[in-house]
């Protein structure tokens, strides 16, 4: 009995001494951390996707606390709502950034773009792209090996078995940009989500001359400039035989969609148009 008592008293005394020492040491070497970092981190979505440009939510919170001006910063996952909350915690101003979405700019389906060769090497787009121009005649388009799917941490991209092209799940995509940097062909772009998810974009990245591009893919942009001339807002520019629609200027009038001879310009989430023979195929796309 005595032994037990002595043990308890000795250990208790040792513990108490250690606690006192630790207390003073902790006081002496205290690391000051801005409590606001924790508060901001609390607000952030904890996705750690890196879409903000910082390595994880904690780093982004630290950066926001440190920065004088956070108006240019944006958490693509949380969007305007989260940024407003974070700004409220910090008492800083934030601009509401328009929500974005990953857009796949290739329409080289098996039907539009016939396969000429078969690739059986390492199954990643990056390696295939370092070896050759891909299974089809278009060396700009999608390789269909799914590096973007692999890169997405939100499960928001999947490969469409039928077309061989990646499809972005609009509900799940947070526009973190992981797929954009994973794609060796720079096919994916972050574009404005648009009101009610309505968007108009050129679904092609082929920079070959019109005739060459058209030969290998029936849905290629041939750089004919019809859309550029048609656009009343000057939102479309054709550079290197490829049209590009600036989403900050585009007013979604869809005039370009109608004039495009190869249906390379896509409109999504618009209500179906009144049937006109010229736009049958675009209707099909909007219904998707």
């Amino acid at each position, binding site marked *: 009995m005595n032994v037990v008592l002595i043990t308890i008293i000795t250990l208790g005394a040792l513990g108490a001494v250690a606690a006192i020492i630790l207390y003073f040491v902790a006081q002496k070497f205290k690391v000051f951390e801005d409590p606001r970092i924790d508060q901001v981190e609390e607000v952030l979505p904890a996705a750690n996707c890196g879409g903000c440009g910082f390595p994880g939510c904690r780093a982004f919170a630290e950066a926001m606390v440190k920065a004088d001006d956070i108006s240019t910063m944006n958490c693509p996952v949380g969007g305007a709502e989260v940024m407003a909350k974070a700004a409220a915690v910090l008492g800083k101003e934030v601009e509401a950034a328009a929500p974005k979405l990953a857009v796949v700019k290739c329409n080289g389906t098996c039907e539009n773009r016939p396969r*000429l060769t078969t690739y059986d*090497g390492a199954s990643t787009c990056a*390696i295939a792209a370092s070896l*050759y*121009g891909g299974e089809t005649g278009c*060396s700009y388009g999608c390789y269909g090996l799914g590096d973007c799917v692999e890169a997405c941490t939100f499960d928001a991209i999947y490969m469409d078995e039928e077309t061989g092209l990646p499809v972005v799940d609009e509900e799940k995509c947070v526009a973190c940009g992981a797929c954009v940097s994973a794609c060796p062909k720079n096919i994916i772009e972050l574009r404005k989500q648009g009101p009610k998810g309505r968007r108009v974009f050129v679904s092609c990245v082929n920079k070959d001359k019109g005739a060459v591009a058209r030969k290998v893919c029936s849905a290629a942009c041939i750089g004919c400039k019809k859309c550029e001339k048609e656009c009343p807002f000057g939102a479309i520019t054709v550079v290197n035989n490829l049209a590009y629609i600036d989403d900050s200027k585009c007013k979604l009038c869809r005039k370009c969609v109608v004039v495009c001879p190869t249906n390379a310009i896509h409109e999504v989430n618009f209500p179906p148009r009144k049937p006109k023979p010229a736009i049958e195929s675009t209707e099909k796309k909007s219904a998707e």
Partner: protein
Amino acid sequence: MLKTFSLGGVHPAENKLSAGQKIEVLPVPEQVSVPIAQHIGAPSEPLVKKGDTVKVGQLIAKSAGFVSANIHSPVSGIVQKIDDVLDASGYKRKAIIIKTEGDEWDESIDRSPALNKTIVASPEEIVKKVGAAGIVGLGGATFPAHVKLSVPPGKKCDVLILNGVECEPYLTSDHQLMMEKGEEIMVGTQILMKGLGVDRAIIGIENNKKDAIEHLTNLAKDYSGIEIQPLKVQYPQGGEKQLIDACIGRQIPSGKLPIEVGAVVQNVGTTFAVYEAVQKNKPLFERVVTVTGKSVSKPSNFLTRVGTPISTLIEAAGGLPEGTGKVIGGGPMMGKALSSIEVPVTKGSSGVLVVPEAESKRSEVQNCIRCSKCVSACPMGLSPYLLMTLSNKAMWDRAEEGKIMDCIECGSCSFTCPSSRPLLDYIRFGKGKVGQIIRGRNK
């Protein structure tokens, strides 16, 4: 016991089907497309434009930097256009397209077959002539030859090593060249020795070419300082570093060039081109290409002009066999599958290998079983299984520490892997990425 390199290596089935086939001169094609990027380094700058008339051997694109090479017209005719053409890289790249009319050679080229043994050119003139003739390493690496001949200040070269190894299975172009142009290669060697200022040259030849070893040994008796070194058959002995190790037992430090150990390596094909350039004033616009494969009816060695479509060569070897799965530019180990048989022959095309469908398929990739066969096979002493994973996970800093840049892309690791893992595919990709990072850092 024959000499060979000290580390790793494999011995794939040799399959030298076209061995002993006389070099056949292919007729001049109706049209050639001459890519302006046929060598390592900066692409050349075209000097001609649409509608220009050119002669055989006329300079049509000039070297665009220190590491770059001149390109000469392989045919006489009219320049059709300068356009993007699919080449062996698998991408469309700029090429000069010439429509052939007759076969009119530039007057300065000596077309007589007579052997010219007297070397009048000074060392400086030799380097200049080799550069002007647009000669690149014909073994396949296509490194401009004149750059190798310009020994950097502070370094000393004491031995020239000629690569007559041809360790790639199937290929026989160098072998045949040694048999038919042995005398010219000897003179070419003397020229290179003079250019480098060395009095010793070793021609390394693998023991599966006994006739070539015998032939050149006999010839070498009349030339001072040239030794023939028979080597054990082992892939990748044709690699510069492996060949130096095999011939003179010197190891090149990581990241350094052969000149570091006082050696310069040139291919025998390159040596023949040097002979022609210096003694006959003939620039490099044609080369010997092996067309082979188990299903090819007439495996052959062709002397063909640069810019000839590969399809013409296959046609001349009996046509594309039924059930062909792949056509490879180069040999089976280091060659690259072509995405079209219309791609042109370039200075670096050593062979065309037609693979039947059944043999062309890659086996299913399985998990790494840590057998370390790839480590034993790697002639550079690397850990391919690890480099593959690092490359896959984009861990470039660790890949660099793992000496990924030392990889010579010989493919011994992929060849030996029992799980059919695409080791080299990943490593080559990682090497590209790490190379980019290093270049960015050095800027």
